[in-house]
């Protein structure tokens, strides 16, 4: 049997760029964050966040290319220059990213170097895909695909369930811990669910909540969608909102990415490696 010449990390990224389904933007955050792009790839792990824990598991699993949705080095820019010079996105403009001599930053870089890992970020373009992979991914992990309402990947009509049972079920299926927080009467029965994975706006909550019973959101602001959901409940409506956290809500979207990559680079093993809920609650 002929030994198959393995692809380099760059040779994995090239077809991703060509097939992303949206035109590749030259100045995006979707770049190599650590490691040598010429490294032969033994396996690919997709994840919501390339934490030390994920990198350690990937390394043990002989999986040396990590494709991450969120940053590796503790900030939007991953300690790299802003791809769009002088065009900070408003959030925290002017605030410094992690410094190069930070001990945690240095140790993480060293771990990646020593284990010959490569980290590549896939956020700006993966977010542009249709249908929305975060919605289909979340529904898939929850077993709700069959409950989708028409062609709207953000809407699901599930068998009626109390808010408390639903929250428990979500915690179990998503392996979430204290990251799950709920607004509404635990005994309220809900059926019509809208997904708002990731960060969502007041406008999104105001559009979705009147049309359904419960919003399943990632991250929203306490003085915006949270207060709107509280007021909806206080006005007498039998509704609620469940916040899952940013990473927990979006990570299933990287499971969708795993499926997509398997078809795109069939010569390389690809697996989903969830970073998990970063939060625990005190006893």
């Amino acid at each position, binding site marked *: 049997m002929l030994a198959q010449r393995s692809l380099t990390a760059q040779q994995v990224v090239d077809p991703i760029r060509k097939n992303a389904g949206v035109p590749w933007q030259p100045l995006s955050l979707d770049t190599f964050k650590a490691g040598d792009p010429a490294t032969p790839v033994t396996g690919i792990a997709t994840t919501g966040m390339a934490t030390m824990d994920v990198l350690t598991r990937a390394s043990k699993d002989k999986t040396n290319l990590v494709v991450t949705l969120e940053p590796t080095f*503790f900030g939007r820019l991953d300690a790299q220059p802003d791809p769009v010079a002088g065009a900070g996105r408003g959030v925290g403009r002017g605030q410094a990213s992690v410094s190069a001599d930070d001990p945690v930053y240095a140790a993480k870089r060293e771990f990646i170097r020593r284990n010959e890992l490569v980290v590549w970020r896939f956020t700006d373009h993966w977010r542009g895909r249709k249908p929305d992979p975060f919605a289909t991914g979340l529904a898939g992990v929850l077993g709700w695909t069959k409950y989708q309402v028409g062609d709207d990947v953000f809407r699901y009509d599930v068998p009626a369930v109390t808010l408390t049972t639903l929250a428990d079920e979500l*915690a179990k299926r998503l392996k979430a*811990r204290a990251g799950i927080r709920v607004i509404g009467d635990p005994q309220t029965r809900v059926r019509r669910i809208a997904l708002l994975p990731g960060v969502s706006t007041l406008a999104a909550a105001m559009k979705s909540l009147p049309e359904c019973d419960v919003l399943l959101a990632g991250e929203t602001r306490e*003085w915006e969608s*949270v207060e709107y959901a509280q*007021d909806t409940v206080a006005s007498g409506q039998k509704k609620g909102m469940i916040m899952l956290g*940013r990473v927990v809500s979006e990570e299933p979207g990287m499971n969708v990415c795993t499926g997509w990559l398997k078809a795109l680079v069939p010569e390389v093993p690809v697996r989903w490696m969830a970073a998990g809920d*970063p939060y625990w*609650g005190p006893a």
Partner: protein
Amino acid sequence: MTATDVVERIKKNLGIPWNEQTTRDTFKAGSPDTEVKGIATTFMATLDMIQRAHAAGLNMVITHEPTFWNDQDKVQDLAADPIYKFKVEFCTKNNMVVWRFHDNIHARRPDLIWVGLVRALGWTDRAAGPNQRSFTLPPTTLGALAADVTKQLGSRALRVVGNPDARVSTVALAMGYGMPRVSPDIDVVMGGENPETGGPFDDSEYVLDAAALGKNKGQIILGHAISEEPGMEDCANWLRTFITETPIQFVRAGEPFWSPKAGSR
């Protein structure tokens, strides 16, 4: 006295010149000319809180955070929303007035919102120095610290990052929409509300990785309400020192969230 009279009295007693530039500290609902039967201070004028203030016979709400779900309390796009109509009609029908007290209460010295948080934590004597936002506590574990903070602040949905067994002593504290940045001399960063990731510097991922590398670091996310509500009790106490004509009560908006039991700790 009218709601305007109350606000004028507050301006006079603030201790610093009133910031006239603020678009936050203004009337949000009801008429400023309304005769005040009683004042309710709170973290956020949620519909539920306004209903309870009304039931207690208090018709002027002094709220720290917005009433209509956005920082500027802009309502142009809300007119058709049924919940907006419900909230406005409740206020109108019951002669309720809502006024926001945010920028100026933070600007005065001491900042009453800060004083309230530190008081509620029981850390008033533990500040590292005057005007310091860091605290040195008797050495404990992150788990024990988080449990103590939960008890002190009465939280049901506090979130923690880091190893529960990590030995910790120094804490940097922030309130509201704020989280201190991790630094070498600080074991635990604690704040109200913050983006989980994608900011200039992400504490959660940093602490997660620091813990994985065996470092004694922790992050405690209190929630916006939990971190700023105590200060509105201090606000009520302060108002009583110069407003004696009308009853003044602290009426909690309360923590908006609960956590499911199945969320493993």
